[in-house]
């Protein structure tokens, strides 16, 4: 069983930090978008066409080494066009990005200070030496969508492995 918590308090705190550009009070107007994070496991099944397929199911266990999918379902629930739509997903320390994650993902290995494809990033050690970033170094994943039309929705996801 999973528990889903709506972090509205965090949302309100964020609103206070960003007050100068927030035109509306959070309590009064529903947000123009919705987002719903989930944690699923992938299960190999045989599709209706008889070919192997992958189905997302509730995980049966959460053990070190288990592979999970962190997903975000989003929708534009307003009548306005939403622009500069940015989904930011920090990775908990107890999971690492799975090696077969989409190499085109925009990731950060420095807690969101800089972003890019993993292959373009590097990690600097305490002694000043630098090495190419690995999947296990990823701290954040994000997606930036230029526009979402009214009523449009979608899902983004990435695989992780429990450390």
């Amino acid at each position, binding site marked *: 069983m999973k528990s889903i918590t709506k972090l509205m308090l965090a949302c309100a705190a964020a609103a206070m930090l960003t007050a100068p550009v927030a035109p509306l009070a959070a309590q009064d107007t529903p947000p123009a978008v919705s987002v719903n994070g989930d944690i699923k496991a992938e299960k190999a099944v045989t599709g209706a066409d008889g070919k192997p397929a992958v189905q997302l199911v509730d995980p049966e266990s959460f053990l070190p080494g288990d592979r999970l999918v962190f997903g975000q379902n989003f929708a534009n629930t307003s009548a306005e066009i939403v622009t*500069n739509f940015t989904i930011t997903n920090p990775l908990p320390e107890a999971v690492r990005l799975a090696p077969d994650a989409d190499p085109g993902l925009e990731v950060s290995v420095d807690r969101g200070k800089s972003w890019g494809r993993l292959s373009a990033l590097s990690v600097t050690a305490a002694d000043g030496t630098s090495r190419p970033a690995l999947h296990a170094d990823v701290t954040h994943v994000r997606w930036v969508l230029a526009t979402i039309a009214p009523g449009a929705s979608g899902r983004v996801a990435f695989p992780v492995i429990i450390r």
Partner: protein
Amino acid sequence: MKTTKQLLGAVSAFALIAMSSTPALAAGTRAGTTITNSVTVNYNVNGNAQNAVTDSDSFTVDQRVNVLVTAVSTPVQVSPNQLNRVLAFDVTNLGNATADLVLSTALRGGTAANISNIRIFRDTNGNGALDSAEQTAGAITSLDEVAEDAVVRVLVVSDISINAVNGDTFDVALTAAAHTGGTVGSLGARILATSGANTSGIDNVLFDGAGVSDAANDGAFSAQGRYAVSGAVLTVNKTSRVVSDPVNGVSPNAKAIPGATVEYCITVANAAGAATATNVALLDDLPADVTYDSGFGIFINGSATCTTGTAGGNYAPTGGVGGRARITGTLSDVAAGQTRSLYFQVTIR
């Protein structure tokens, strides 16, 4: 863009807290750790930044129960009548939570009557030997609070009976069963698999393989070590031949008549593959109607045909049972496949 940066700053603080509470171990993330998929969405409407929208989904890391037992060195050579012989084992907690491990032994091969006093000691200094301090600490039946990835060396200690013979083997299995840890000095309950669907709490998943005397996924593991008995296999043979008689002199035809000289030959043979016999002491009380020939003397460490011996041994005129004459002698070590002898001569009265 300012909005995004500030939010990420807050997110980073969360991540740092998470890191300090979930050390990354080879055994994996500790059971009970909460992992949260938290998402923040920033967006603009009509070019104006809006309040961020967030959501999260959390789960609790379950307990992977996994124990490994390995025999450190096996087989161990033992001799009959040897006490406190050691089989060393390493017990590893491969799970992702601290566990108490209950230890037990079972004799899986060998004659039960010939091995006894099977106990378990903790090898505190890890040298694979039972040291006096470890023996003083006493036998144990469990290991308290074994942390993730911790390896504990324990010693299975047994006494080998004097009736064990060369070639005997004794297979002793050590089983470690995972019990709930968490309280120092207190043995928790045996960990059982959580049945049914995943729960929001810590579920137990038994991950162990099948050992020599336990099944897979039973929360226990076992391995066995072997004692191999290396005993001497001695055969003692006593023969006599008439060397001479008063009529025929020294002759193949000499007869065992009064006055004849007779040589006694005692051979000790150790079988091939056996352990070397040491301190082989021979004792022979003479019949009343023969007289020891002090002129010939006693020879020890002779060949299988009672030649090439060296002078030695001892003659006690009244040292035997009932005041009879007694011949004694101690042979040098008798290796596997070797035969040594003691021989002397007497005169028939």
